[in-house]
């Protein structure tokens, strides 16, 4: 019993020192000068623009990833084609690559001298150091979430019901909307929540691609660093707390969703 207790003490102590205490400290620092200062720090034009940009980028990147994720998962689960195994393994790559490397790769391709960048520049569209680049970077880093959640469910349910629907005269679209989508919906939602968390919090790739122009291409995470470097710690802590609260909200959503999923099977 004593051994069990000391193991528990060691595990909880480690978590406390590494996770709980530092996070608690950030909350304390953000609120130590009162609620007024906290809200004031979040309603400056710079902070408001950063919040707007972060929400805009998330609102574009997450639906794009959901659509891509469902499409890719269907392709991998329901079709046979050459290179399928490679694609299946490649899907995880954005998790393994450093966000900085992702950013650099995007700059090399879409920057002014890049393969595609010069084409877009000819059409008057600037990607790097502007919002489209930030969206692109965010999509890249959160790409695998929906695929990873949906694919195992698709494999588990099999295609018998879809085939039955087809023999009864349903079109592909009807079979998808009526049969497949309801079955994968919980997995899609779970994947969407995970991509949202990643999209809100992405820093490295966006840092490279955005050029960090104050009040223009600065997202919330970049704003935290900017304020920290500018010794405006109140604003840095306040913004960090806002992001942490969003993250904790995601955590709560995931806990509720996974409990519901384990009750329903998938």
């Amino acid at each position: 019993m004593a051994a069990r207790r000391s193991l528990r003490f060691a595990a909880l102590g480690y978590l406390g020192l590494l996770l709980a205490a530092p996070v608690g400290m950030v909350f304390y620092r953000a609120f130590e000068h009162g609620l007024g200062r906290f809200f004031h720090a979040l309603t400056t034009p710079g902070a408001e623009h950063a919040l707007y940009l972060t929400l805009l980028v998330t609102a574009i990147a997450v639906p794009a990833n959901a659509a891509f994720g469902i499409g890719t998962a269907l392709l991998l689960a329901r079709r046979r084609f050459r290179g399928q195994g490679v694609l299946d393994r490649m899907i995880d790559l954005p998790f393994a690559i450093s966000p900085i490397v992702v950013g650099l790769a995007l700059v090399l391709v879409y920057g002014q001298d890049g393969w595609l960048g010069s084409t877009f520049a000819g059409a008057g569209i600037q990607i790097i150091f502007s919002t489209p680049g930030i969206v692109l970077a965010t999509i890249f880093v959160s790409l695998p979430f929906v695929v990873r959640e949906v694919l195992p469910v698709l494999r588990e349910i099999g295609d018998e019901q879809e085939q039955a629907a087809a023999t009864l005269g349903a079109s592909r679209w009807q079979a998808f909307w009526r049969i497949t989508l309801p079955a994968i919906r919980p997995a899609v939602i779970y994947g969407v929540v995970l991509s949202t968390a990643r999209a809100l919090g992405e820093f490295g790739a966006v840092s490279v691609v955005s050029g960090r122009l104050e009040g223009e291409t600065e997202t919330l995470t970049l704003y935290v660093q900017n304020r920290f470097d500018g010794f405006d710690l109140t604003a840095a802590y306040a913004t960090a707390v806002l992001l942490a609260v969003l993250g904790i909200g995601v955590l709560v959503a995931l806990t509720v969703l996974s409990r519901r999923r384990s009750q329903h099977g998938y």
Partner: protein
Amino acid sequence: MVDRSLQGGTGAFWRAVSAPEAVASLKLTFAVSLIVALINAVTGTLIAWVLVRDEFPGKRFVNALIDLPFAMPTVVAGLTLLALYGPKGPVGIDVAYTRVAIGLALLFVTLPFVVRAVQPVLMELDREMEEAARSLGASALTTFRRVVLPSLRPAVVAGAGLAFARALGEFGSIVLISGNLPYKTEVASVFIFGRIETGDVTAAAAVSVVLLAASVLLLAALSRLGRPRWVDDGR
């Protein structure tokens, strides 16, 4: 994609990778990441064990807390650690701008990997074997080492491998707390970032290729142990 930029000749590539500052940053990155993966193997297994085998009030809350590093932006993680273990921290411990700080930041962001890899295996584990070992006179430690650990080993390796891969490329949590001093606390991702800023794309791309190759190799090796669990998929 990236290797296009090093078509400026393999000579230029090698010169860029073997530049002293680049080598120092890569060495530091691999060394710290390895240490962090090893620490995670121990602490992660410990935490998973306590979460599966122990009962205490608030266990479900602690279990949910494990995923916090995945849900929280990495810069926030860095700032968080700096608030407690930085220059104006309340505990009088200041690790800012040291290699310890890098390790701390990496331990924070990679915490869930081993825990979430080991937890399901531990839940499935048949306890009769352990009870048999104990009734035959084996000590708790021997039972763990000879009976439990062999079944956990693949999961521990898979989790630690993911932690290592993640640590190699980590940027956001490190950049505020490490001070980024060349040769001392500058990790590879921060080195790359600095070179992009100064327009030295060749050096940035060369070190990127090293990191990229390491990630691809690790990913291939890890997928032999089953589907890598980068995220807690809630099942």
